[in-house]
């Protein structure tokens, strides 16, 4: 601790913290209010991507149904804090409940798939995600649980110590809008998730995950209980997914099955792949890029008008096309991602040598 105080790391940390606290003000002033919301979503996606990174990046279990856990967390929040069932439970109950139920679903998905790896696992998890979505879409009759495709509206915003994040608040003479307040809340959770991930990475469990990723048989031979360690990976990933889901529901005030389709899972997966699997910084970078770049592409409409005098292709339609092309190019040119983890880099160097 004393060393840390003396070193430059301390200064960097303070500057980083200060920058992160000031960031929403800068963003709002320079880019406008809509970008503040995008920033909030970027934080949510960082949490999601770090959660998926545990499953895919560390343990090497390719999960294409990750969004199901996000959905479970979000619907859990939506059902327990909205007029839909007339329930209004406090934050301290709902958020852990959502995360716990999501973890349960993680184990539920993990148990039957323990023998599978690679493509097969990807397909099964994808099927699992679709099943959850089909249920969310249809569980409105005869008993209305999820309100079907319309989704659940009027979800209550987060309420901390009698202090609502849903409306403007005066703090220290500053007026902070709701996206502002959520930004700080999400930041705290992201910091928490990053901390947990960092501690996990070098723990016994983290090493066991990497071991089964590299060679499951050897790991089992070395005395690792591969079943429990895999289930733990699914459960941990799902917990983070459920947590982000709950935060998402309260921030958005509205959930519907549409937010939890396969494309969302693929987006989160590509964040990890783009950034650099298994590397926390890489994953954060990937999540930021994948959230921000498509938004920035909205400006291509203006660019088209400037170049050709009219908008040929709706920028909203162009986004996914470019995203698809980017996925292919990325794999062809830089399969290890922008910031590959140290371990991966070593492996690649060995392969080359």
């Amino acid at each position: 601790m004393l060393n840390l105080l003396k070193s430059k790391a301390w200064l960097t940390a303070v500057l980083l913290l200060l920058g992160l606290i000031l960031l929403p003000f800068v963003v709002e002033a320079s880019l406008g209010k809509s970008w503040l919301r995008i920033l909030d979503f970027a934080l949510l996606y960082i949490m999601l991507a770090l959660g998926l990174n545990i499953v895919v990046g560390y343990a090497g279990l390719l999960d294409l149904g990750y969004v199901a856990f996000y959905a479970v967390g979000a619907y859990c929040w939506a059902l327990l804090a909205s007029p839909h069932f007339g329930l209004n439970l406090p934050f301290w109950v709902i958020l852990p409940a959502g995360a716990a139920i999501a973890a349960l679903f993680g184990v539920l998905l993990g148990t039957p798939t323990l023998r599978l790896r690679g493509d097969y696992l990807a397909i099964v998890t994808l099927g699992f995600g679709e099943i959850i979505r089909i249920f969310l879409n249809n569980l409105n009759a005869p008993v209305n649980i999820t309100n079907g495709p319309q989704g659940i509206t009027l979800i209550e915003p987060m309420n901390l110590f009698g202090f609502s994040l849903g409306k403007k608040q005066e703090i220290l003479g500053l007026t902070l809008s709701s996206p502002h307040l959520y930004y700080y809340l999400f930041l705290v959770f992201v910091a928490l998730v990053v901390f947990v991930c960092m501690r996990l990475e070098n723990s016994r469990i983290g090493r066991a995950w990497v071991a089964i990723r590299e060679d499951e048989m050897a790991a089992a031979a070395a005395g690792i209980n591969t079943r429990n360690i895999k289930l733990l990976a699914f459960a941990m990933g799902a917990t983070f997914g459920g947590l982000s889901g709950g935060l998402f529901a309260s921030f958005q005030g509205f959930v519907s099955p549409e937010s939890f389709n396969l494309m969302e899972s693929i987006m989160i997966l590509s964040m990890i792949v783009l950034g650099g699997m298994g590397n926390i910084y890489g994953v954060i970078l990937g999540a930021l890029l994948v959230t921000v770049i498509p938004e920035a592409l909205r400006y291509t409409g203006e660019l088209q008008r400037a170049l050709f005098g009219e908008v040929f292709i709706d920028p909203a339609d162009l986004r996914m096309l470019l995203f698809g092309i980017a996925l292919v190019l990325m794999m062809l040119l830089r399969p290890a991602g922008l910031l590959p983890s140290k371990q991966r880099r070593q492996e690649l160097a060995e392969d080359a040598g």
Partner: protein
Amino acid sequence: MDIFAQQMVNGLVLGSVYALVALGYTLVYGILELINFAHGETTMMGSMIAITVIGALFGVAPDLPGIVIVFTGLLAAIPACMLLGYSIERVAYRPLRHAPRLAPLITAIGISIVLQNVAMLIWGKQYIAFPTTLLPQGRHEILGASITDVQIAILFLTVTIMVALVTLVNRTRLGRAMRATAQAPAVAQLMGVNVNRVISATFVIGAGLAAIAGVMVSANYGQAHYYMGFLLGLKAFSAAVLGGIGNLTGAMLGGMLLGVLEALGAGYIGDLTGGFLGSHYQDIFAFLVLILVLTLKPSGLLGSKSVERA
């Protein structure tokens, strides 16, 4: 009208389409151990192209017999999709043949997103109608079920294609090369097989079958949509897994079984669950089958044991 017989007919027709698409998955998987995620989108492209050609031809020569116009559309879609299949393999899979398994999976997803969005930009976001009026409109009663001429044609065409494909794989030089490549690519190469050409041929054949399936499904339902390939592809993949991936007969059996299961499931799920779950849960069966088969018997009904390593 007997519900059971009717759902059997519907299921077999649906199953024919699944089987044709499943053959494409199984052919590629048998050789490369790769799930060609973009295969469903190839099917979609097939029906879109066919509908466009049919519309154009009808505009130019409305006096031609309807069946000729539809057939021309089909014949145009097949080579177009073959070219597409060939290009996909060259661009997205061949450069990554020795990369970690995650890489081709991601490029496959990328390609399927690209194809969906290209289709959306060309044909728009709405459903586009297949001119079913050009097709024979006959209906027949068999054992209390009604079956249309189009459905009979689909069943007949599927069986013909399957017989032809099995003959191709088991009796021709190309078929032998394909089987050799699937067994051991390196050894096949040493024996003088041009492995790259065989893999390209596999993709081309699969894409051709996908084009036919795409035209069938849009002729049967009277419409096509840029997103239709996704779910169709997933279900066909489930069918291939059910039958035992890598196994041709398995893909056909799996496709037919899944089609029948889905149709019967949709017909009876309401009664079975006392009205709690309705026929809009139809899409769930393919995924349930997929999960059950992969967890209980990963090699599928007719597959070999070796697949378990996947």
